[in-house]
């Protein structure tokens, strides 16, 4: 049924359908809010529909499928090269789903500069999706930067009181990393080109080329900065809490759900396969930083008075798992890292959405100002509970699978590392449950009582936007197989490329 997807440029359609939406938006007068919302929703739904065609990806077939290969700037070996493997497929679908969720959630929430808002959201989609499907380092970089500006505007225009500080910090952090990465990309391409090869930015041609140790180390550091800032890894994470607190809800959903994954994806797609020797060399440092991030994020989360900040810091901890899994270099760790990315995107996206729901009603996010909400908003409490448990990693929900696999992988690397991260599973239960208890079970605070009569449970658009995430969090928890099947081949491929550097072969490890 979805075979016809191989006949059409489906990846271009996924990436550029939102651009058609933007063009349509430009033709609509700014005060026609209804029309604007529908155009944005339809454009994102169309992109989602195209992305679902990618489920037809055949894990047993070629590594990259649905390829598109066009000349762009041949003078510099830059091409419009697109293609996806299983890793890209799951992240592309995560992106389109979360974009639809954010657009739906914003439906009746955004009342100022509506047209610009939805245009920005759609442009953000283009940048993010482009990153996941590029098979050309230059094209990848262009999309990477393209995803930056819309988020900058999203936080800066529709954000909270300290939005300008937060958004400038976000941009400057990201730009420093990405500009250094650009130099590294050029250095890698030039080194490959001067080795008697064609000068090109094509990913597959650069991958596997034996770059010298010195170049690998320098390039790895540059890539690391770009990706680690995005992930974000301790100690480069300080932009994240500010950005999250000031971002509008939909911005937070995308930021936590997808933008952080750009960093994780960068490590898996570029750092490890392109620079395997340096990756192995630096692995102990990265793992140390990852463990610190895991612990630090969890500990700091415990003392956060603000709901959004708490979830932001928990992201630092969860993304630390991703980094840990990526750098222990075994199947379980890598599979866990990928799964954790997907799961974190869903649960944290949903948690930010739910925080947005209460913020809409009370204009406050301080935990101390909440309390007793279970009595007044039972359905809302149930949903919040579901995602709280998913975030803690309760078996049966998606959060469990990723963390479990990562810890399993970490055990093969080093027992102490695994033990330290296991500790965090307890910490996360502490901060999440304690937060849940203070928000939903205790006696309502004086502040909350003022809003009490006007509090209403979740609205229809809120349910609609949350629904896909509810389905996914349960489905992936019970049936992680399909995702793991898709990501198995890419993970094996990474291990294969890195095997000569580690001296291990991926298949010899016990399961």
């Amino acid at each position: 049924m979805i075979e016809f997807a191989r006949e059409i440029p489906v990846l271009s359609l996924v990436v550029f359908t939102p651009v058609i939406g933007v063009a349509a938006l430009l033709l609509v007068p700014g005060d026609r809010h209804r029309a604007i919302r529908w155009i944005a929703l339809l454009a994102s739904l169309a992109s989602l529909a195209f992305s679902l065609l990618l489920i037809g990806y055949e894990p047993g077939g070629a590594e990259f499928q649905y390829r598109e290969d066009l000349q762009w700037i041949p003078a510099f070996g830059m091409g419009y090269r697109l293609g996806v493997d299983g890793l890209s497929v799951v992240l592309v679908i995560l992106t389109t789903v979360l974009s639809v969720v954010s657009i739906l959630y914003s439906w009746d929430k955004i009342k100022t500069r509506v047209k610009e808002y939805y245009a920005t959201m759609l442009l953000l989609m283009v940048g993010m999706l482009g990153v996941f499907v590029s098979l050309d380092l230059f094209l990848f970089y262009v999309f990477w930067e393209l995803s930056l500006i819309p988020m900058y505007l999203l936080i800066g225009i529709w954000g909270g009181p300290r939005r300008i500080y937060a958004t400038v910090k976000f941009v400057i952090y990201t730009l420093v990393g990405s500009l250094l990465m650009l130099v590294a990309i050029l250095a890698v391409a030039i080194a490959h080109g001067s080795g008697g090869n064609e000068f090109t930015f094509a990913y597959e041609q650069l991958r596997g080329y034996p770059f010298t140790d010195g170049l690998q180390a320098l390039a790895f550091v540059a890539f690391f900065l770009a990706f680690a800032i995005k992930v974000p890894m301790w100690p480069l994470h300080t932009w994240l809490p500010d950005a999250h607190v000031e971002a509008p809800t939909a911005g937070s959903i995308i930021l936590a759900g997808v933008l952080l994954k750009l960093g994780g994806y960068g490590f898996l797609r570029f750092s490890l396969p392109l620079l395997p020797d340096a990756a192995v060399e630096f692995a102990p440092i990265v793992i140390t930083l990852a463990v610190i991030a895991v612990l630090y994020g969890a500990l700091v989360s415990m003392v956060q008075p603000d709901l959004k900040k708490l979830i932001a810091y928990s992201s630092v901890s969860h993304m630390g798992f991703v980094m840990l899994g990526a750098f222990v270099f075994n199947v379980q760790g890598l599979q866990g890292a990928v799964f954790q990315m997907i799961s974190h995107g869903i649960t944290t996206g949903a948690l930010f959405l739910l925080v947005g729901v209460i913020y809409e009603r009370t204009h406050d996010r301080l935990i101390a100002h909440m309390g007793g909400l279970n009595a007044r908003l039972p359905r809302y409490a149930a949903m919040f509970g579901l995602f709280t448990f998913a975030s803690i990693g309760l078996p049966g929900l998606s959060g469990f699978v990723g963390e479990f696999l990562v810890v399993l992988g970490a055990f093969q690397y080093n027992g102490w590392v695994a033990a330290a991260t296991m500790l965090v599973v307890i910490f996360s239960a502490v901060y999440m449950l304690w937060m849940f208890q203070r928000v939903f079970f205790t006696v309502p605070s004086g502040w909350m009582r003022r809003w009490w009569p006007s509090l209403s449970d979740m609205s229809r658009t809120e349910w609609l936007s949350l629904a896909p995430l509810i389905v996914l969090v349960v489905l992936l928890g019970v049936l992680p197989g399909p995702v793991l099947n898709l990501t198995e081949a890419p993970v094996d491929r990474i291990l294969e490329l890195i095997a000569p550097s580690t001296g291990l072969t991926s298949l010899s490890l016990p399961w």
Partner: protein
Amino acid sequence: MNDPLNDLFTLLPELLLVSTALIVIVTDLFIPRSAKWVLTPITILGLLLTGIGCVQVWAVDDHVFGGFYVVDPLSTFFKGATLVIGLLTALFAPSYLVSRRLPLGEFNAILLFSLTGMFVLASSSDLITLFLGLELMVMPAYLLTGFHKTDRYSNEGGLKYFLLGSFASAILLFGISWTYGLTGTTRIAEIGPALGELGTAGPAVLVAIGMLTVGATFKAAAVPFHYWTPDAYQGAPTPITGFLSVGPKLGAFALLVRLFAEGLGPQRGDWLIVMAMLAVLTMTVGNLVALTQSNVKRMLAYSSIAHTGYILAGLAAFAAATTPAIQQEAIEAVLFYVLGYGVMNIAAFAVVGMLQRDPQRYGGLASFAGLASRAPALAAAMAVLMLSLTGIPPTVGFFAKLYVLLASVDAGLGWLAVLVALNAALAAFYYLRVIVYMYMRDGEEDPAPVDRHPFGTAALALSVAGVMLLGIFPEPILTLLRDSAAALF
């Protein structure tokens, strides 16, 4: 080669340009005040005809007038870029000048003469011609800076520019005479080999190279020879500032390419480090000072210093390159940057000028506050220009930086590339501040009125379209560049 008629044909662009200037002066005398606007279309027409002239001589690669003058694709490329800059300036200036009762005819004529100077500079194959072209370029520029006769700042800027500029010309001239004394020739192409015979790094050679470097980088506004820039730029009428920040700079880089890449190419080991250091110093100081400015005009003035630094990095890459292919790539990077930067910077200054319709407005950041809701199209245009100046894809500014980075890394100057990248991130801070004001702050009580003159609007639309298109599809320009830079090798 020595057929005088053929020599004249190769001068077709210059002849057209000078004729236009003369026609403008004469027409200005005979038309009433109410019809002065027609001088702009005349200027535009003349520039377009000159452009056609450039196309006619594109294939020419010849030394004419006994070797004093060279017409090759490199010079023709510089001329083309000059015309783009001249065209935009001529379109942006009228409404600003007319609203301040400044004479349009004189402005156009002076502008055209300055452009002629840039033409001569780009085509000089002899130190004498080079100096002649340089002076023909900067003399009108001094006049333009002080063009607002009744404005103190304009006077001050003009005088400063004139005094320091003459000083720098004197140093350059001194360097030229020193070079002549050492080599016995003023032919640019013969200097390098002649100096080579003297043996490198003798103190006399270094003095000559040093003098030439100081004189040339002064014109390009490189740190530490940049002190005239902010005052001259701030004082000049805004659209003219746009021209000053790119026109004489383009000329200065034409001079640098001719003198250093062509003339002193064999000595590049001697000037590599100086050029690289100047690049680093220029971009860093330019950016750091730009960071602290609250006046957009002054901020853009300092940022134009930073851009000089990036272009110098391209020149340093030329000096460090080990193979002709990489040398050529570095020259291409310089050319591309000069052109791309020219378009985006001139347009950015023009936007500042459009917000100064009320002559009391001085171009502070506050006049940009809330612009996105008052004038969405203008704000969007300015946002694109700011992103391009920062170097965010898909704009021409990004591609220009990429080119410089590519050349630097290719030439083995990885550290310089890293510094360029870090500087670009630093620059993002103040460029994005303009976007913050336009999009994220509420407007003032009494917002600056927006100038919507049709010429200016058309030119702005044209430049923004160019900035985007060249950023996404640079291929056509790259082909031209390749031919131009190849003329040197």
